[in-house]
């Protein structure tokens, strides 16, 4: 079913951030310039207005739901829009679903376009959720394109959440905050890929508390900083029981860009195994040389290395 309320800019943004091809199969809610451009629930996935009267939605996934995808992309298609939305996800026991939540911001004028999504994930015992989020900024105006997502994650026993986030350009400022609390045997996996250039700034903050026995987290951020852009990576991984936590920040820095990585590990149990890895540096000369021996120019080699790094 075609979503008629979409404007052309939103339609284009949705193609990029959520794979929109004229329709979404399954449940969806599309946010456009702080309003709702379309919504559909299915038998297993119900989307309703936020119960606290806040702007935003609640997504309720029935226990045992398998293999369904719910799309909740948001678009800001002009300047002077400061969009704030609260999205809560209630995932039933044993459900296995994918949430596609891209965000595109566009401004053609001097007005600022901002999307601030506050997400809460209540993931019941044994559920397995994949959350895909792609950010893009575009348009020719001088107005800033800002995306500031906040995610609070509550993982019950044996629950699992995989967050896959991509921001590969066009966003002038982003400040991503992710907090998580993990019960026994719960697992959080985060894969972040980030590219900044020009005067862009991007901050990533993780605060993960592993409360339950045998819980685990794996937070991996790969980023490329060019131009005069600035990136900051803060992670705090807390182990309160026997658990395994790993965070990694891997950054390629070029030009006059600045990258900061500040990991923090807090072990409140002798059985908490916590690891952080951080590596910041320019593209290795030998990598460029290898690709040049394959016939690539230096510029092509750099592009290939970055493409692979942020794959």
């Amino acid at each position: 079913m075609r979503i008629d309320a979409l404007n052309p800019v939103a339609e284009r943004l949705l193609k990029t951030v959520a794979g929109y091809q004229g329709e979404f199969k399954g449940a969806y809610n599309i946010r456009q310039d702080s309003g709702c451009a379309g919504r559909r629930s299915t038998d297993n996935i119900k989307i309703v207005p936020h119960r606290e009267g806040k702007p935003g939605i609640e997504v309720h996934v029935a226990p045992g739901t398998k293999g369904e995808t719910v799309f909740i992309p948001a678009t800001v298609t002009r300047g002077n829009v400061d969009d704030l939305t609260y999205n809560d996800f209630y995932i039933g026991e044993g459900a296995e679903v994918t949430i596609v939540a891209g965000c595109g911001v566009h401004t053609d004028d001097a007005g600022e376009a901002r999307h601030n999504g506050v997400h809460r994930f209540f993931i019941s015992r044994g559920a397995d959720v994949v959350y895909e989020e792609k950010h893009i900024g575009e348009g020719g105006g001088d107005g800033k394109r800002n995306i500031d997502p906040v995610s609070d994650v509550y993982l019950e026993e044996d629950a699992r959440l995989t967050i896959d986030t991509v921001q590969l350009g066009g966003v002038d400022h982003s400040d991503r905050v992710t907090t998580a609390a993990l019960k026994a045997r719960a697992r959080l996996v985060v894969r972040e890929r980030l590219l900044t250039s020009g005067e862009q700034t991007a901050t990533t903050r993780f605060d993960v508390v592993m409360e339950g026995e045998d819980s685990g987290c794996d937070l991996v951020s790969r980023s490329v900083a060019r131009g005069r852009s600035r990136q900051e990576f803060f992670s705090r991984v807390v182990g309160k029981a026997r658990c395994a936590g790993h965070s990694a920040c891997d950054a390629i820095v070029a030009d006059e860009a600045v990258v900061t990585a500040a990991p923090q590990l807090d072990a409140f149990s002798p059985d908490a195994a916590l690891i952080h890895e951080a590596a910041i540096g320019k593209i290795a000369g030998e990598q460029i040389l290898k690709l040049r021996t394959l016939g690539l120019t230096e510029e092509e080699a750099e592009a290939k290395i970055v493409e692979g790094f942020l794959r």
Partner: protein
Amino acid sequence: MIELRNVNWTLPEGQEIISDLSLAIPGGKLTVVTGPNGGGKTTLAKLIAGLVTPTSGQILLDGRDITGLDVTQRARLGISYGFQTPVRFKGLTVQGLLEAAAGRLLSFDEMCDLTGKVGLCTADYVDREVDASLSGGEIKRVEIASVLARGTRVSIFDEPEAGIDMWSFNGLVEVFRSLKQQGMTMVVISHQQRLIEIADEIVVLSGGHLRDQGPRELVMPGLLAGEIAGHCPVGRKVGA
């Protein structure tokens, strides 16, 4: 044919690595470059591929002076170089690297053909990243496959046997034998007797000088004699 004319290469600190080296590597044949460690073999390979530039002298490919061409230009002229110590890439997959080498997308069958030649199973490796998760032997095979993927007229392999187990090595020897039959010009830096045995031509470098060069039948006996005597091969007088 690759020709070096009076080539010198000196480290920035002044140490001479290659000294007034002149030699001709025949086209369409397998030439093994051997000799003691530190003799200049890898530098010779890098000089041909353009990874280092001679302090003086000339390098020619089929009569064309390529001394002033950079790595990319030489690669595009048809020179491929397999590194002695392969480079690792975070994120780049085996398929991505081999496609960069081939200059086009590769089908699953083509990937099978390439990785099979170096003893890797495609299904296990296409999506693997060419990073620290690959063992020394695995990444060496991927490196060799990256040269094979290009299919260029000149292929240089720097100690291809390093890190390859003896079972896979048999297959590798067959690959070199097959390329030789296809008329490809190959320069293989090696100490491996099995590779030396399939060479058409042998070049012996020692101390940055050409110690010996000629058909395998003539050079190999001297190599083995040197090995038995426990010192560097003296060789015949070049040109004798």
